[in-house]
């Protein structure tokens, strides 16, 4: 009987053949020394793999990844964004106030006079709202 190909023998060792294929190879092995040696060598190697499979890798502390953590990350991102936005608005507002406080009425009049071609002077009521120091 012709020897089965090596792929078949590899699958035979894994018991991944059909019942009839297994039977054919079982019968063949009874009479074929070289195939028996091949099967033994394969089995020895698989024993080595089993030893590798059993060894424990040093797995770090359980991964703290969960759906809720995902939400938590989003919440932090949104909170930081809002904080930055609010800070920017506050800084911008205080800067405007500082500039306004440093100008007096005459400066404004001078400014609007020199830029009257493209800036319209606000109504008097606007000036009355600004508290001059």
């Amino acid at each position: 009987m012709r020897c089965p190909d090596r792929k078949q023998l590899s699958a035979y060792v894994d018991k991944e053949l059909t019942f009839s294929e297994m039977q054919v190879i079982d019968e063949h092995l009874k009479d074929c020394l070289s195939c028996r040696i091949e099967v033994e060598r394969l089995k020895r190697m698989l024993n080595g793999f089993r030893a590798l499979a059993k060894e424990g890798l040093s797995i770090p502390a359980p991964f703290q990844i969960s759906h809720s953590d995902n939400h938590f990350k989003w919440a932090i991102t949104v909170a930081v964004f809002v904080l930055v936005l609010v800070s920017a608005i506050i800084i911008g507002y205080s800067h405007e106030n500082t500039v306004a406080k440093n100008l007096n009425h005459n400066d404004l009049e001078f400014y609007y006079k020199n830029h009257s071609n493209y800036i319209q002077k606000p109504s008097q009521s606007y000036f009355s709202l600004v508290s001059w120091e």
Partner: protein
Amino acid sequence: MALEERLADYSLVQKLKAGDSDAYDSLNREYAGKMFRLVCRLAGPEEAEDLVQEAFMQIYRSMDSFRGDCSIGTWVYKITTNVCQDYLRRKNRRSWRNLFSLDWLKSETDRELPSPLLEPPEIAEIKDDLDRLRLAIATLPVEQRAVLVLHDLEQLTYQEVADVLGIALGTVKSRLFYARQKVRLIFEGGAKSEMPRS
């Protein structure tokens, strides 16, 4: 897959899709360790934690697309393997050789076997064999390594390996055969080269 397992999987998937945090914790408990081990074996330990995190994120993101035509375990392995393969392709590395030092290989064996202070020759020999075997696996091309690791180390069946990698059963059989051939050549070549010359 047995009916009971399918029902358990179905119930877990429904909870996950509904955003049940207990279900996420249970998925985490069940698979984090297995995923870490698989990533270490496929892509090396250096970025294993990051890769497991990436795989978990992909699992959560694609939960809605899980159709239940395989077990959750197979699906988790599939995503983890894809993440590893993408990582290795990105890095353009065909083997573990550059990914971790041999010191790590040694230390893993030391952790498993009895004290190195009392080291009979048989134990030293086993440790040496395991190191060589590990190195031989590490030198395989990614596709062959994935099949060998999933079948011979993670103990998946041919059909499960085919499902995880999205390849035909015949391809699993043939890749496994060639992978084993190579490992054996490297392993036995190493043993021969260590034999004392007369």
